[in-house]
């Protein structure tokens, strides 16, 4: 769906067209569910968050003025609902300590990873993502799976751009560290 097409669809939704809204739901439901999953770590709650987010979006679509991307605006709603659901003031944030992994270990973990079958690779990565903290897993998946820019992630999570960059760097290393540890356990 092109951006211009999406804006036309949003205009139709503003006029109350439910079929047009269905198109937006089909496009964004997987990532909305995913964001919920990263924060509440429970499929049932994640589904409820995604549903509530779409409902809220439908009811407040008039507030979307097109200044930012619709996806960023929408993911911000999902993120806020997910954080409220955890009943915490803030989600668990990543620690300040540097990750203890050398460049060699990163390269080795990567090389080991590439030797796995696709199915096993997905499983390993899934487990590794689950071991990250909520904020870390959200940032890294938004960046690599949804291809959101650092600026967009900053808008969604309300973290500063520099903070997102730092956390992204640390999370990359941490992910390789977890993959490396997982491999060691298997050995």
């Amino acid at each position, binding site marked *: 769906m092109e951006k211009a097409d999406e804006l036309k669809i949003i205009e139709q939704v503003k006029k109350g067209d*439910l079929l047009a809204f269905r198109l937006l739901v089909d496009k964004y439901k997987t990532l909305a569910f995913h964001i919920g999953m990263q924060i509440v770590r429970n499929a049932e709650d994640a589904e409820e968050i995604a549903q509530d987010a779409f409902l809220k979006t439908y009811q407040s679509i008039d507030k979307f003025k097109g200044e930012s991307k619709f996806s960023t605006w929408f993911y911000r709603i999902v993120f806020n609902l997910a954080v409220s659901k955890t009943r915490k003031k803030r989600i668990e944030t990543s620690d300040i300590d540097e990750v203890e992994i050398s460049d060699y270990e990163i390269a080795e973990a990567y090389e080991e990873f590439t030797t796995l079958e696709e199915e096993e690779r997905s499983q390993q990565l899934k487990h590794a993502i689950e071991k990250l903290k909520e904020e870390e897993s959200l940032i890294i998946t938004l960046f690599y*799976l949804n291809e959101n820019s650092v600026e967009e992630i900053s808008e969604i999570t309300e973290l500063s751009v520099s903070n997102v960059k730092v956390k992204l760097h640390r999370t990359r290393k941490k992910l390789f560290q977890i993959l490396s540890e997982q491999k060691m356990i298997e050995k």
Partner: protein
Amino acid sequence: MKNKYAQAYKKNKTMDENELNNLSKKLFENYKLQRPPEDFTDKLMLRIEKAKNPVKQEKKVLGSKFMMFFIVTFSALTLFGFIFQDKSNTSESGFMNNLNLHYFDLEKLTKLFNFHIEIGLFAKLIIGSIIVLVIIDLLTGSVIDYFIDSKSKKKAGFEN
């Protein structure tokens, strides 16, 4: 050949941010996100439809329907009483006093239970209308439906 790539980093090669980014990107290649349940969209559309037609409005419609049926029954009983009015009564009190509701004589009915009360004509008509409506509702099961419906609507309603 194994570890050839990694070995390079053992020999003091450093990994810059771009390299780390590229390796991370490759990790996520072909990785599929967990999808929400199949009926996600249908369930959502149903919730939106319900949110568009709040429970309060439906209750209002049901309430106004009850009033309409009550007025119709009340009028029907009055008309019925007028048709069967006591023709022998020639006093000047007119229509209201001549209304014949002997087919619905609540006073006789109360005497059956060993007590006696004076019930006015309008009270008779109102009580009569309510009893008729309740009997119809019970026979058609709509009273039960009404309670079940209002309970389920409350549960399914959109929470703001």
